[in-house]
C-alpha cells in the first residue's frame, strides 16, 4: 500500500518534471514513452497534479491544450509577469547588430557577403550575435561558389518585434523602386 503511494508520488514528480522542461505540449504517449510508465499511470499522475495545483493555491496550473498537456503560470499573476518582462532588460542590441538585422529582415535569404556589401563593413560578429539571440538562423546554402550560408529571420524575430508575418515589416522609407525611379 505504501509502496503504491510512493510509486504514485514518483510518477507525479516525473510528470511534473517532464511538463516543466519539455519544449512543447506533451501527449500521454510522449510521457509514457519517455518515462517508461504505462499511459494509465501517467494519466492518473496528471489528474492528481491538476487537482493539487488547483487545491493548493499554486502559482502554476496544468491544462490540456490542443493535443497535449502544458503547464502555465496562473492568469491572475500575469500582470506581475509582464511587469517582470518590462524590467528585466536583455542586453540591448548594438546599433550595428540592429542594422545587420534589418538588412537580413528585408533582404532574406541573404549571405554574409551580401550583408557586408550592403552595410559596407564586416558583419560576421553581428551575424553571430543575432544567431545566438535566436533572431536569425541559417536558411540553407546559396548555389554559388563556396555555397555560402543564407541567413533568414526566425519566428522569434517576428514574436519579439510584434510582427505577425514578414509582410508586416514596415515599408522602407524612400526606396525609389522601379516604377517611381
Amino acid at each position, binding site marked *: 500500500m505504501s509502496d503504491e503511494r510512493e510509486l504514485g508520488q514518483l510518477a507525479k514528480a516525473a510528470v511534473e518534471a517532464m511538463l*516543466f*522542461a519539455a*519544449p*512543447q*505540449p506533451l501527449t500521454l504517449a510522449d510521457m509514457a514513452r519517455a518515462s517508461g510508465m504505462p499511459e494509465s499511470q501517467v494519466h492518473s499522475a496528471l489528474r492528481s497534479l491538476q487537482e493539487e495545483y488547483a487545491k493548493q493555491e499554486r502559482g502554476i496550473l496544468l491544462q490540456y491544450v490542443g493535443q497535449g498537456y*502544458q*503547464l*502555465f*503560470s*496562473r492568469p491572475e499573476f*500575469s500582470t506581475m*509577469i509582464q511587469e517582470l*518582462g*518590462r524590467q528585466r*532588460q*536583455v542586453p*540591448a542590441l548594438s546599433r550595428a547588430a*540592429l*542594422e545587420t*538585422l*534589418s*538588412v537580413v*529582415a*528585408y*533582404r*532574406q*535569404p541573404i549571405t554574409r557577403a551580401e550583408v557586408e*556589401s*550592403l*552595410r*559596407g563593413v564586416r558583419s560576421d560578429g553581428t551575424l553571430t550575435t543575432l544567431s545566438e539571440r535566436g533572431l536569425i538562423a541559417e536558411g*540553407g546554402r*546559396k*548555389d*554559388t561558389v563556396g555555397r555560402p550560408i*543564407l541567413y533568414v529571420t526566425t*519566428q*522569434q524575430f*517576428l*514574436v*519579439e*518585434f*510584434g*510582427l505577425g*508575418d*514578414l*509582410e*508586416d*515589416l*514596415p*515599408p*522602407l*522609407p*524612400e*526606396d*525609389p*523602386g*522601379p*516604377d517611381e*525611379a
Partner: protein
Amino acid sequence: MVREAPRLVLEAFEGPLQLLWHLIDRDQLNIYDIPIAHITEQYMQYLQEMEWQEIDIAGDFILMATQLVQLKLRMLLPKPVRDSDQEDGEDPRQELVDRLLGYRAVQTLAGQLEERASQHSVHFGRAVERGDYTVRAPIDCNAAQLAHLMGKVLTRAIPTHAHISRQQVTIGQCMRRLLVRLNNAWRRIRQGASFSQLVGPASRQEWVMNFISLLELIRRKKVRAEQAEPLTDIQIYPYRARRGISA
C-alpha cells in the same frame, strides 16, 4: 642529417608550461628541485621534433626555451657577489616553479569548472517560448526602427556599389513578372496562387529577388499575401481581386 623522429603535433600541448609538466611527470622530477640542465635538454629535443603548425604558439614555446637556457646558465655560473637587496640563497628556479604550480592550479580549476557545468547540465530550466503567460524578452527596438535603419543602409549603399542598382532593375522585372503570372492565374481559375507556383523553378538568387519583389508588391498594395504559419508557402491574391489587377 635525416632523422626518423616521432612526429609530435605542437598543438597537443596548450603551451610550454603544459609541455614542461609533461616532461616533469614523465621523468618523475621533483618540482621543488628541478634539474634544469636535464629538463632544458628534453624540452629542446621536443621542440626540434615537433611539427610547427601555428606560428603564434611556436613563439610561446621558443620564448620558454630561451628562458630555460638563461636559467641553465645562471645555475652554471658561479654565484654572483652577494647583492645587498637579494636574500641569501634565493633559488633562481623559484620563478619557474611558481609559474608551473600556478599553471597546474589553473588546469585543476579548468577541470573543476567543466565538471561543475556538467553537473548543472542535468538541471533543465523551462523551455522559454512556451506558454501564453511567458515573459517575452524585450528588445530595445521596434519594427519601424528596423525599416528606418534599412533605409539608411540603402541610401548609403546605392552610390558606392554598382551591383545594387543592377539588382533593383531585376526586382522591377521580377515584380512585373509576378504580377503578370498572378493576373493570368486569377483570370484562369479565379483563385490566388502560391508564391512557389508563381516563381516556378528558379535559382536561389531568383528566389531572393522574387521574395523582395513580393514584399514590395505588398507594400504598394498591388497584392495581398497570406501565410498560414511561418515557413509555409505564401498565398498571393491580387490586392483588389474583384476589380482585377490594376497593373
